[in-house]
């Protein structure tokens, strides 16, 4: 177990292993995305209330749900960085932050695009939207801190601390924001929970899209991390061999 753990910590091992995985992941993603997108765009019946705009859901929901996973992931990676000083964990943490920010931004954007036809506004101070906005700010904070600190080592630890403190805070923020808004304007909100009353032909493609976007997320993360590994280990022998080979 311990051996496995420290082996996982080796960037080189990770680089090689992830290199083996990547083609499979690509293939799986292409399949899921193709099936999910065609189904969602062409075959899902238009909603009787929302019309064609229901199709935005197949982007919005996966993107939003992934962005929620990013902060905990970053905090876990940060904890590993602080406790075991594993370099790989920090590389992952570093790469998750911008992806998290992007996905939060995309969730906001796709939500806004969806909101315009449904609610008649691009933006409203609904609890969910607001907590997503704050989470977006938190990601920006981590990114700003990382880019402000010159020393890589110090940046790694500083961002780890911020990620952990932030992760403790994310549920508090979410809870407080929900509590704040539900009391203020309980009536005028449109339900965002269409899962329950909907038939399988709506949510099966959704599940497929979620899987597809998750794969996309994992691939992006792997690619970024592999790139980071090469940059940080550029002076090590195995990277130079790699470069020389082609």
């Amino acid at each position, binding site marked *: 177990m311990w051996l496995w753990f420290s082996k996982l910590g080796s960037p080189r091992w990770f680089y090689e292993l992830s290199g083996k995985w990547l083609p499979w992941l690509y293939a799986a993603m292409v399949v899921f995305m193709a099936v999910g997108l065609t189904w969602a765009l062409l075959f899902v019946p238009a909603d009787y209330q929302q019309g064609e705009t229901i199709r935005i859901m197949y982007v919005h929901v996966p993107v939003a749900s992934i962005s929620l996973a990013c902060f905990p992931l970053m905090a876990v990676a940060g904890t590993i960085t602080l406790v075991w000083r594993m370099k790989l964990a920090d590389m992952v943490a570093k790469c998750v932050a911008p992806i998290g920010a992007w996905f939060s931004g995309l969730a906001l954007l796709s939500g806004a695009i969806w909101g315009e036809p449904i609610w008649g506004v691009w933006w409203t101070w609904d609890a969910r939207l607001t907590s997503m906005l704050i989470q977006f*700010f938190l990601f920006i*904070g981590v990114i700003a*801190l990382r880019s402000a600190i010159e020393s890589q080592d110090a940046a790694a630890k*500083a961002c780890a601390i911020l990620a952990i403190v932030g992760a403790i805070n994310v549920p508090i923020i979410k809870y*407080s924001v929900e509590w704040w808004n539900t009391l203020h304007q309980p009536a005028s909100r449109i339900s965002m929970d269409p899962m329950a009353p909907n038939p399988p032909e709506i949510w099966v493609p959704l599940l497929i899209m979620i899987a597809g976007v998750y794969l996309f997320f994992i691939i992006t993360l792997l690619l970024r991390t592999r790139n980071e590994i090469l940059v940080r280990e550029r002076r090590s022998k195995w990277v130079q061999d790699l470069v020389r080979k082609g």
Partner: protein
Amino acid sequence: MTDKSPVSVADTQTLTSLGKAFRSTLSRDLLIAFKRRNDILNPVMFFLIVVSLFPLGVSPDPQQLSVIAAGVIWVSALLASMLSLDNLFRADYEDGSLEQLLLSPQPLYFMVLAKNISHWLVSGLPVVLLSPVLAYMLYLPSEAYGTLFISLLIGTPVLSLFGSIGVALTVGLGSRGLILAVIVLPLTTPVLIVGAKAVADVSFGLPVGTHFAILGAMLALALTIAPLASAAALKISVN
């Protein structure tokens, strides 16, 4: 040259006791604040000025002001406490006192706590004390004064404590000012929400016990983790 007995490896028994070191750090920071005077005056002045910008920028109408009063006062208090934080470790970092603190054999948790307490006493407390005056100026319903005061009294230490993590993380950076706010403000939104909501609710005649309980819980959490996180962050920053 004062002659001394030959030196020997430290006898940890004779070290300064924790209580004494704590008081020494606390009183040193208070002394610095009093010598600078600005440290005490400025947060209050900033609070006062920002709050008075609203009648100018929004509208002097009592009706409208009374609606936004609680929110404006809380946001301004948040900003004032955030911006006064720059003084918390910066000067110590630049003149090397921070290194000395980190190299002292005293537990860092308590040293950071002492600095936090001193900072709150000179920058948070005056803001709390001034708040009723501003509440009056913004036509806050008078039933809400007590709640505003108490919520700020519990809430501002939380702001200081969370803020100090941010300062500790950024104290070594050349550029400053806004990055602190960008890191810390999102973290402190729950305090703002609960605090401002307590005041708003009490104006509507709703009970506010839960709000205070939540704020108290936040304070307890902040007291537990914030000094630890700040201490860890300081070690990184001097590296």
